[in-house]
């Protein structure tokens, strides 16, 4: 049994955990839920020894633990499977699995590959990983990498398995494959801690759930005694709304962007669509369906092999990202905010104003007007309700939801006419998610932008869009109009989408 007693932990500007006490029993799948910034990942990292708590103790099987390094937790049998899967890409699956326990020929220090591959294969079978153990890691899909991680934990006789947002990189199908394996492990007596923000998932898989909110432990309940609304209320303190945000006023006279017959090997096959002023056009599809690839062609990062792009009715050739941004006023909010969307070590102000620097320059002195810069950043941060200590705070210190707001803010400041938003709420808490949805909807409704929303979250896309295009295998396989019509139900729409994907 794993127990946390009165754990507290602080970071610059944030109280990550405040006197949190939790208990995880063997033989159960125990969910740890909460908004981003609630403290889930911090708790996990303290358990696995990566962070030291500022106060409190950890008990494992009744014994007081003091982890100073990651190795200590592994030695105690506690294994963590990360959201961002860390593997050694050039090595084989077997090597990755057996890394801690390389079998050698006697005491010679020479590796016994046969034994390693056989042992690894055994654990791989246990988790349903049907690949040769000698396959190289870097070619594996995210789902397979994750299974390999779990196999690795098993190979090391893990007594506790911590999974940090395990299904964030998986398709529905792959997630469905994972759950029986977790149940088996539970039955074998492993303590499983399942960190997730996906409510349906938790309710379908887990036995107990503990909710953290703003660093404090709100409560622990049996899942069987909870409704979805109860859970949401525990997480954000108020009700969550699934309904559509409202009918959008689309101006069909003003076509902002149209593409015809866009083809690029492996990225797009004869794709065509148009988006109008005041519209939120949803691109729904699974990872790899071709939506992001299409977006990157539109903004000029990639060149199409054939096809035409029309901006405001005129055929154009888009040469580069700065061309699409400054000349055609098309913006793109990337799905990878940390790698591609933000300058983590820079201030909120710098991150927001980068797209408008050239517009706030004093003609004579060529110097950026500090007043205008601050004002633009201030306006944006206020409009987006970014929670921060100041505009100069480093973006890397913000929570995921606030980081995403800054990432979006940069494009709002640029005042684009067409805004392509790619997976805006991945890793963002429920509260901020709602705000971002409302924001996107307002962009179309009030500010008359043409918005393309790329999302694999069915609820999200149905809630915000006025029209949905369904993508599969780099093609558009279906279109649903009038998604914002109040008569249509969620089930109606989601079924229709599902039919296109079948």
């Amino acid at each position, binding site marked *: 049994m794993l127990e946390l007693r009165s754990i507290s932990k*602080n*970071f*610059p*500007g*944030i*109280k990550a955990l*405040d006197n949190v006490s939790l208990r995880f029993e063997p033989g159960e799948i125990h969910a740890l839920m909460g908004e981003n*910034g609630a403290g889930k990942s911090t708790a996990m990292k303290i358990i696995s020894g990566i962070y030291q708590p500022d106060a409190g103790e950890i008990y494992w099987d009744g014994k007081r633990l003091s982890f100073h390094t990651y190795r200590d937790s592994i030695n105690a049998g506690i294994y963590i499977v990360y959201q961002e899967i860390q593997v050694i890409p050039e090595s084989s699956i077997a090597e990755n699995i057996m890394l801690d326990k390389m079998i050698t020929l006697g005491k010679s220090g020479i590796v016994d590959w046969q034994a390693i591959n056989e042992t690894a294969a055994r654990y791989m079978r246990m988790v349903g990983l049907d690949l040769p153990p000698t396959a190289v890691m870097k070619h594996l899909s995210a789902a397979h990498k994750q299974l390999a991680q779990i196999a690795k934990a098993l190979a090391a006789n893990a007594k506790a398995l911590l999974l940090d947002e395990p299904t964030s990189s998986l398709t529905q199908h792959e997630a469905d494959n994972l759950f029986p394996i977790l149940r088996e492990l539970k039955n074998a007596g492993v303590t499983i801690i399942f960190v997730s923000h996906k409510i349906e998932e938790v309710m379908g898989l887990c036995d107990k759930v503990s909710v953290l909110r*703003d*660093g404090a432990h709100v409560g622990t309940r049996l899942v069987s005694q909870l409704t979805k609304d109860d859970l949401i209320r525990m997480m*954000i*303190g108020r009700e969550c709304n699934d309904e559509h945000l409202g009918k959008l006023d689309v101006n069909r006279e003003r076509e902002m962007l149209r593409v015809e017959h866009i083809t690029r090997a492996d990225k797009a096959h004869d794709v065509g669509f148009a988006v109008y002023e005041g519209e939120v056009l949803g691109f729904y599809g699974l990872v790899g369906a071709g939506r992001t690839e299409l977006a990157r062609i539109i903004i000029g*990062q990639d060149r199409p092999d054939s096809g035409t792009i029309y901006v405001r009715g005129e055929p154009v050739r888009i040469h*580069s*990202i*700065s061309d699409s*941004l400054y000349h055609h006023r098309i913006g793109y909010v*990337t799905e990878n905010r940390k*790698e*591609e*969307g*933000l*300058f*983590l*070590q*820079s*201030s909120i*102000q*710098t991150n927001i104003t*980068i797209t408008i*620097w*050239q517009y706030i*320059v004093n003609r004579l002195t*060529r*110097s*950026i007007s*500090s007043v205008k810069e*601050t004002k633009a*950043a*201030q306006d944006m*941060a*206020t*409009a987006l*309700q*970014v*929670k*921060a*200590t*100041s*505009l*100069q705070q*480093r973006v890397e*210190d913000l929570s995921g939801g606030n980081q995403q707001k800054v990432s979006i803010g*940069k494009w709002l400041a*640029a005042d684009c006419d067409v805004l392509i938003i790619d997976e805006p709420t991945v890793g963002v808490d429920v*509260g901020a998610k*709602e*705000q971002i949805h*409302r924001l996107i909807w*307002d962009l179309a409704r009030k500010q008359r932008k043409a918005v393309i929303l790329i999302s694999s979250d069915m609820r999200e896309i149905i809630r915000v869009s006025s029209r949905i295009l369904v993508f599969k295998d780099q093609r558009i396989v279906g279109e649903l109009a009038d998604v914002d019509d109040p008569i249509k139900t969620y089930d109606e729409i989601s079924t229709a989408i599902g039919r296109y994907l079948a």
Partner: protein
Amino acid sequence: MEKKVVDMEPAAEAKQPSGKKVAAGKGELVSGRTLGLVMSAAILVAVLTLTPKSTFLSTDTMAFISNYVAFWAMLALAQAMCLVVGGMNLSVGAICSITTVVLGLCLDSRYLGLSGCIAVPIMMLAGCVAGWINGLLIVKLKINSFIVTLSTMFVYMGLRSGISGGDSYNRLPQSFKTIGNGTVAGLGVPYLILVVVAVLAVMAFVFNRTVFGRRLLATGGNAEAAKLSGVDTDKMTVWANVLSGLFAALAAALYASYMGVATPGTGDDWVIISFAVAIIGGTGLSGGLVSMTGILMGGVIVQLIKYGIVQVMKSSDYYANCFLGASILLAIVVDRVRETYDEKARSSAGRAGRKTGPGQDTGP
């Protein structure tokens, strides 16, 4: 949008303390760091002054040291230009070398015998061209700067040996030599150091306040994010390399002016110094962070060390490299300690500050 949820302190409070210090959003960190450099320099000065038979505080020594600080600072600036965009310039010494040959050919009365006003700009142009070649190769061939500049280093060095045949150009016009050795009347401040300080001031302005400078920092800070935000990172890389070549040429020009001779061997040992001064001066190795005052202080410290080794410890100049290497390591270690200290400070500020409460952000 609707309600103004005020969660932010007025931006005016977070203004950077001094106009010259630059970094994309890291103003405070840099100024604290520069303060540390100033203190280190002060300690060195104290040590050098207090050693017996020290001639340290004489005007001659001051001038001597200042001139060398000028060369090193300009050189470090050349290196820093490439570091800032996330690359490096191993050919910086070689560019000094080849541009010195160009200068010699222009100025020396045995060859073109042009006046300084024409020869020096030509030399600068040569430096820009050399830098431009580096930049083009990096961007068009998509080979990293380490390999490209390593190769061009050899190319330029080969060119300079071939063209000059190893001979120095010593029939230089007097006016040119005077600038190098002149000092402001009465104050004893050499012209060269004034030139360098002016250049650093201009670059500080560029990095801090111009779109171009900000984009350079963005390119080094996160090239992918910069690209997606509409910054032409390739163009920035080329420009950074051009400026690197320009400043290398300028460093060589200052040196030739001081020495009174254009020696083709100029810059052969200078690559290490360019890194040392840049790094000690707080230039981030992965890009996106630079400080002009830091570079100047870095130059001061390095020259004080070199001077100290030779004069005070009476050992040969070669051993100076040992100390330089040790200083770089020390600078990086101190930096790490400072970062950790800074994190703890930000952390305790967080503890004392507000805790975000559930009811605090009111939705629309």
